[in-house]
C-alpha cells in the first residue's frame, strides 16, 4: 500500500471519528444524555445540572444555584402540562437574566427552528425524537408575539401559506377553526386543509376570517425560500432599490443566497440595497460583513465550459441595514460592524442585546434546552444586555400595523432622496 493511500485512510478515519463522536461529553453531561425515568422532576434536574456544569460563568453570576433549583422544582412537579413544566424551567433559567438560556417544547415553532439550526451537534439524539430524522412541523410561516394577552403576527415569511393567504404583520389572531390559536397545535395534522383563522386587522375593526392551508415546514428550507422570495426591487424617485430579508443567518447558505441575488439574481440591477435583519435568528459570522467592504477584490473564475464562479463578491453601492428588537446575536455583530465601519445608515429600533454563544441540549423528554456556554465581547465591548442603537431610530407599533412598515419606508427614503 502506498504512503498516500495510507495517509488518506488515516485522515479519513480521523475525520469520521471526529464527525461521529464530536467533542467528548463531560461525565455530568453524559449522565444527562441518555433517557432516564427516575422521578417526576428528572427533566427539570437535567436542565438544572446542565446549567450548573456548562453555563459560561462557573460562579453562575453569584446565584445560589441549589436554592434557585429548590425554588422552582416544586412548581415543575405540580405542573399538569408540558407548557406549565416548561414555564417552571424557564422561571428557573430567567433567574440568570441572560439571553441564549431558554427551554423550548414541541408546541413552539422555535423548538423546530432551533433543533434544525443545531441539527449537526444534535444528530445523535434527533432520531430518538423525530421519526426518520426529519425536523418538520405543521405551520403557515409566521412569527407571533403576545402583547397584553393578545397574539399578533410579528413576521410573515414570503411565499409561505400565511403570505399567500394575505395575512399581514400586525394582525391579531383571535382563533383558529373556532378554537384557541396555538402556533403548532392549530395546524397539526391539517396539512393542505383550509384552517379558518379569525383575525382583527384594525383595533376597532371587525373580526374577519382568512382561510390558510398549513404545510410541513422544514425550518432551514423555509428560511431560505422566504429569503429568496423576499428579494424584490422597489422603485422610488427613479431609483431601483433592492430589498432582501434575512430571517435566519445560521449558515453560510444564507450569505450565498444574498451574494447570488446581488450578483446574478433579482437584485443584480439594483441601485441600492435594503438589508433587512429584523427578527428571526442570528447565527451570522462576522466575515459575512466583508460583502460591504468596498476595498476587497472580486474575482471571477471561468471554466472552459463557460461556467463562471464569483469569489469575494462586494456590494459597492449604497446600503441601509434594518434592525429591530428581534435583531439578535450574530446579526448584532453584523450591525455593530456595519455601523462602526460606516457602510450605511442603520434604520429601525435598537437590537436585542442578546449576544452570547449557545449550545443546544435535547433533554430526555425531547424538549430543548438552549444554554449560553460562552460570554462574548465584540472589539472589547460586551453587547449582551445593551444591543446596538441604530443611526436613524424609527419606532414600530406592531398591534394592528396592517402590513404598514414605517422602518422600511424610512430606509427607502434614505436611499431614494437622502431623507
Amino acid at each position, binding site marked *: 500500500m502506498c504512503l*498516500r493511500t495510507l495517509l*488518506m485512510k488515516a*485522515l*479519513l478515519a480521523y*475525520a469520521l471519528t*471526529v*464527525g461521529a463522536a*464530536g*467533542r467528548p461529553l463531560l461525565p455530568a453531561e453524559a449522565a444527562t444524555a441518555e433517557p432516564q425515568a427516575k422521578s417526576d422532576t428528572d427533566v427539570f434536574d437535567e436542565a438544572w445540572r446542565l446549567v450548573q456544569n456548562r453555563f459560561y460563568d462557573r460562579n453562575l453570576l453569584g446565584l445560589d444555584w441549589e436554592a434557585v433549583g429548590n425554588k422552582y422544582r416544586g412548581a415543575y412537579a405540580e405542573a399538569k402540562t408540558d407548557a406549565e413544566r416548561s414555564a417552571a424551567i424557564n422561571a428557573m433559567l430567567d433567574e440568570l437574566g441572560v439571553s*441564549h438560556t431558554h427551554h423550548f417544547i414541541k408546541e413552539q415553532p422555535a423548538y423546530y427552528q*432551533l433543533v434544525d*439550526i*443545531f441539527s*449537526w*451537534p444534535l444528530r445523535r439524539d434527533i432520531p430518538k425524537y423525530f421519526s426518520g430524522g426529519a425536523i418538520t412541523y405543521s405551520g403557515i410561516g409566521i412569527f407571533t408575539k403576545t402583547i397584553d394577552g393578545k397574539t399578533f403576527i410579528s413576521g410573515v415569511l414570503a411565499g409561505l401559506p400565511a403570505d399567500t393567504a394575505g395575512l399581514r404583520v400586525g394582525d391579531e389572531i383571535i382563533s383558529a377553526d373556532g378554537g384557541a390559536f396555538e402556533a403548532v397545535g392549530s395546524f397539526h395534522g391539517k396539512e393542505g386543509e383550509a384552517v379558518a383563522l379569525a383575525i382583527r386587522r384594525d383595533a376597532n375593526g371587525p373580526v374577519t376570517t382568512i382561510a390558510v392551508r398549513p404545510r410541513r415546514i422544514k425550518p432551514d428550507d423555509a428560511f431560505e425560500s422566504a429569503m429568496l422570495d423576499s428579494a424584490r426591487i422597489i422603485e422610488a424617485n427613479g431609483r431601483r432599490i433592492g430589498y432582501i430579508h434575512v430571517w435566519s443567518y*445560521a449558515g*453560510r447558505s444564507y450569505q450565498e443566497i444574498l451574494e447570488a441575488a446581488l450578483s446574478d439574481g433579482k437584485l443584480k440591477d439594483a441601485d441600492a440595497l435594503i438589508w433587512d435583519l429584523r427578527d428571526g*435568528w*442570528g*447565527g*451570522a459570522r462576522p466575515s459575512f460583513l466583508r460583502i460591504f467592504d468596498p476595498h476587497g477584490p472580486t474575482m471571477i473564475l471561468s471554466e472552459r465550459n463557460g461556467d463562471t464562479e464569483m469569489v469575494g463578491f462586494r456590494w459597492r453601492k449604497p446600503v441601509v441595514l434594518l434592525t429591530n428588537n428581534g435583531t*439578535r*446575536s*450574530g446579526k448584532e*455583530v453584523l450591525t455593530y460592524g456595519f455601523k462602526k465601519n460606516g457602510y450605511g445608515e442603520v434604520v429601525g429600533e435598537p437590537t436585542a442585546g442578546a*449576544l*452570547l*454563544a*449557545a*449550545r*443546544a441540549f435535547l433533554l430526555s423528554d425531547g424538549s430543548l434546552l*438552549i444554554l449560553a*456556554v*460562552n460570554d*462574548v465581547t465584540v472589539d472589547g465591548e460586551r453587547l449582551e444586555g445593551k444591543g446596538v442603537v441604530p443611526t436613524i431610530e424609527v419606532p414600530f407599533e406592531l398591534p394592528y400595523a396592517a402590513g404598514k412598515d414605517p422602518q422600511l419606508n424610512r430606509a427607502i427614503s434614505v436611499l431614494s432622496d437622502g431623507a
Partner: protein
Amino acid sequence: MAPGRPAPRAAYCYEFLIIFFPSLARMAAILFLHWREPQFI
C-alpha cells in the same frame, strides 16, 4: 497568531491537506464548521 508563537499542529496539518488533498481539506473545513457547536443564534 502572536509573533514568535509556534503555529498549532492543527494549522500545519490543515496546510498539508490543502496542498496535497484539497478536496479532503474542503471536507475537513465543512466538518469543522459544523462541529463548532456554540452558535450566536
